[in-house]
């Protein structure tokens, strides 16, 4: 008997399979439908859920991009009002964000590939952080202008001067400015203003990449990784991504922690007393044996030392947080090479007593003013809401509620992981270590927000773990609905807190022109009187000026000016000790005063009107956004 030909075998197998399948279907199902074997001979194409299809996500991304571009076309920045940019943005902008949020979270649910999910985050960064750059056309934030001024100083002087009175802290921690000066001068630009406005989207992209790599060392669940990256982006309203040393060093902080976790760490088991305390942890053990220290390990340490050196010499606060993080990781047994904590600590202290000794010795009392005053430092940001405008009170409270929500959800994430028997020592240490900032000082009232900034990547990680505590969990629609709800709440908080202060963070072209006239025309030894610090200032030849800010003058002096504006200002602006004296009043100064004080509401507008009506003052520049005054003097002006 001859053997059947191959097609006969296939036909027999097909018939047998159909018989078994028919019997199986006749029986009540014990398993879920997904557990049953699929028909290997079924030639009909498998139905892919629509949320898993790249075409679906491509369509959503195109829709979001079109909505965004349309919103850019229809936004009128003149409508920026009590709620900042929120007042001016059209509904298409918010629709773009909604499409991105829902599309991304559906993609995470279906474990869409990285090439599908990454564009959502990149587009989100574009929508949120590039929009102000495109819409404004001028550099945002007064402090960014000052930082451009520090770069200008280095480009003109080609040397440091730690004794300089103009922003001395940057002469003592100059790393970021050295790098920026190199780029500006090498390209042949006259000022860092040419590119500084693009810092927020660039730093956010860098932070996203750094966080993606870092999270890869904490989890192998891609849903957790992507969700944490998303939460980090939508919660990070602190605004420390502008052209500043903090943004640069924060990126290096994330890179350092990423390298440490990837190459120099292990996953320790929970300590015995913790295992006794939390029953689900009893079965846990170290997840990886400590690897041997090799030449490559020391190469990694050398790379870290270079990055540590720049962190230590570029920013006063970040080295302290990084040192605390490394010591925390060492204490909890995460670090394989514990000496790197000592190296970072030595660099931080060493720089304070060498490169930064001038600043340190002249500011010792202010540096250590808040040392140990944990509650005072904590509350340094949480008062004085009674003095602010109603809209700004709402903006501030929404931001605080978002911080509270993120903190609460992160703690819930830690608890849920512990209940699942997971000991996330590295993540928990890195979440908690920024608290050291509150012990160290109030950091000009920003301490709490800096704690939030440094804790946020790991808070986002634990919130993602709250949604997906294990590979098996989080497969139901409930989890996706919860993720969308959390994202919506966090995103609303972000939009209020990040865009809500644009009334005085945005500088219209008139303000910039007025400031340029002052800074380019004024001779050395000029006194510049300003309503507040909040306008484009100190960006060019800044050390030639003496600055007097009305908002920070003694109360008695301010009262005198407000009661007799013409007489007092004629006296100030005629001060013979200075080559020239200018008074600059701008729209953003008025907005800031009206929103948060400390001068009486409308006071700068009344001062401006009184001086404009007086023949004693020469109006150097005037439009609806800014006015520059001076008095007629006999002193010859320097022509530049």
């Amino acid at each position, binding site marked *: 008997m001859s053997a059947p030909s191959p097609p006969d075998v296939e036909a027999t197998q097909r018939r047998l399979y159909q018989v078994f399948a028919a019997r199986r279907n006749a029986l009540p199902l014990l398993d879920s439908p997904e557990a049953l074997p699929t028909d290997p001979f079924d030639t009909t194409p498998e139905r892919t859920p629509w949320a898993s299809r790249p075409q679906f996500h491509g369509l959503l991304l195109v829709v979001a991009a079109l909505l965004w571009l349309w919103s850019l076309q229809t936004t009128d920045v003149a409508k920026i009002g009590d709620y900042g940019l929120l007042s001016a943005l059209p509904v298409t902008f918010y629709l773009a964000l909604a499409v991105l949020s829902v599309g991304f979270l559906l993609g995470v649910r279906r474990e869409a590939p990285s090439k599908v999910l990454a564009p959502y985050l990149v587009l989100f960064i574009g929508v949120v952080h590039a929009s102000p750059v495109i819409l404004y056309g001028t550099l945002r934030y007064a402090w960014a202008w000052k930082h451009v001024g520090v770069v200008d100083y280095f480009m003109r002087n080609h040397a*440091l001067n730690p004794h300089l009175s103009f922003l001395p802290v940057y002469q003592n921690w100059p790393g970021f400015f050295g790098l920026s000066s190199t*780029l500006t001068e*090498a390209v042949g630009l006259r000022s860092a203003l040419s590119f500084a406005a693009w810092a927020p989207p660039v730093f956010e992209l860098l932070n996203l990449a750094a966080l993606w*790599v870092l999270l890869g060392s904490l989890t192998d669940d891609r849903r957790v990784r992507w969700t944490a990256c998303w939460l980090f982006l939508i919660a990070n309203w602190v605004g420390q991504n502008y052209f500043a040393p903090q943004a640069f060093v924060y990126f290096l902080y994330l*890179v350092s922690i990423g390298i440490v976790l990837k190459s120099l760490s292990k996953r320790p088991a929970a300590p015995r007393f913790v295992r006794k305390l939390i029953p689900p942890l009893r079965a846990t053990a170290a997840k990886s044996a400590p690897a041997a220290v090799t030449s490559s390990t020391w190469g990694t340490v050398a790379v870290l030392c270079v990055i540590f050196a720049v962190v230590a010499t570029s920013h006063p606060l970040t080295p302290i947080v990084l040192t605390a993080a490394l010591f925390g990781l060492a204490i909890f047994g995460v670090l394989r090479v514990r000496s790197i904590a000592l190296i970072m600590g030595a660099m931080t202290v060493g720089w304070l007593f060498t490169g930064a000794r001038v600043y340190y010795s002249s500011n010792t009392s202010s540096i250590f003013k808040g040392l140990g005053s944990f509650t005072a430092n904590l509350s340094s940001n949480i008062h004085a809401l009674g003095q602010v405008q109603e809209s700004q009170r709402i903006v501030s409270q929404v931001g605080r509620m978002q911080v509270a929500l993120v903190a609460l959800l992160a703690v819930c994430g830690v608890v849920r992981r512990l209940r699942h028997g997971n000991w996330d020592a590295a993540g928990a240490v890195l979440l908690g270590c920024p608290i050291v900032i509150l012990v160290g000082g109030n950091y000009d009232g920003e301490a709490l927000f800096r704690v939030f900034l440094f804790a946020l990547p790991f808070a986002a990680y634990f919130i993602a773990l709250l949604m997906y505590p294990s590979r098996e969990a989080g497969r139901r629609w409930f989890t996706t609905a919860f993720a969308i709800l959390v994202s919506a709440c966090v995103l609303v908080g972000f939009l209020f807190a990040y865009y809500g202060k644009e009334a005085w963070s945005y500088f219209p072209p008139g303000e910039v022109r007025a400031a340029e006239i002052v800074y380019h025309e004024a001779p050395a030894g000029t006194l510049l009187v300003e309503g507040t610090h909040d306008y484009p200032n100190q960006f060019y030849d800044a050390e030639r000026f003496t600055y007097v800010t009305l908002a920070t003058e003694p109360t008695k002096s301010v009262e005198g000016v407000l009661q007799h504006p013409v007489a007092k200002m004629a006296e100030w602006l005629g001060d013979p000790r200075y080559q020239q004296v200018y008074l600059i009043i701008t729209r953003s100064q008025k907005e800031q005063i009206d929103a948060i004080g400390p001068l009486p509401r409308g006071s700068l507008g009344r001062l401006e009107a009184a001086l404009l009506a007086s023949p004693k003052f020469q109006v150097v520049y005037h439009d609806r956004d800014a006015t520059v005054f001076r008095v007629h003097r006999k002193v010859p002006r320097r022509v530049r």
Partner: protein
Amino acid sequence: MNPETRWLTLVVVSSVAAVLATLAGTADGLSMIPLLWFLAVIPGLPFVRMLKNNDDPIAIGLTAVGLSLAIDALVAEALLYSHAYNAVVTVSVLAAVACLGAVIGRLRTSSGDPEPADPVGVRSEA
């Protein structure tokens, strides 16, 4: 051309382009693009490749960017402190550092140095 020679060529060409762009200082994309590429990636790239710590291209790229920016800042700081700073000198020093790193990497490969052990122990577990 073997891969190591290709890396060496990339670093050397990028470094030369950056020095030329600095000398030209055209204040437009012609200077900006090669200098941004050089400052952001090249000074740290040869050293990160020497580590051979992992095969994840995003991690290697990110570490190269982080290390490059750190080296840029460190060199600029040193020159600012020594009152020898200017852009041409800074970019030239950075180009020298990058080329030196690339040459060392090339020599280590050609001398048949054993591949550095994997610090996370993945290879030994396999």
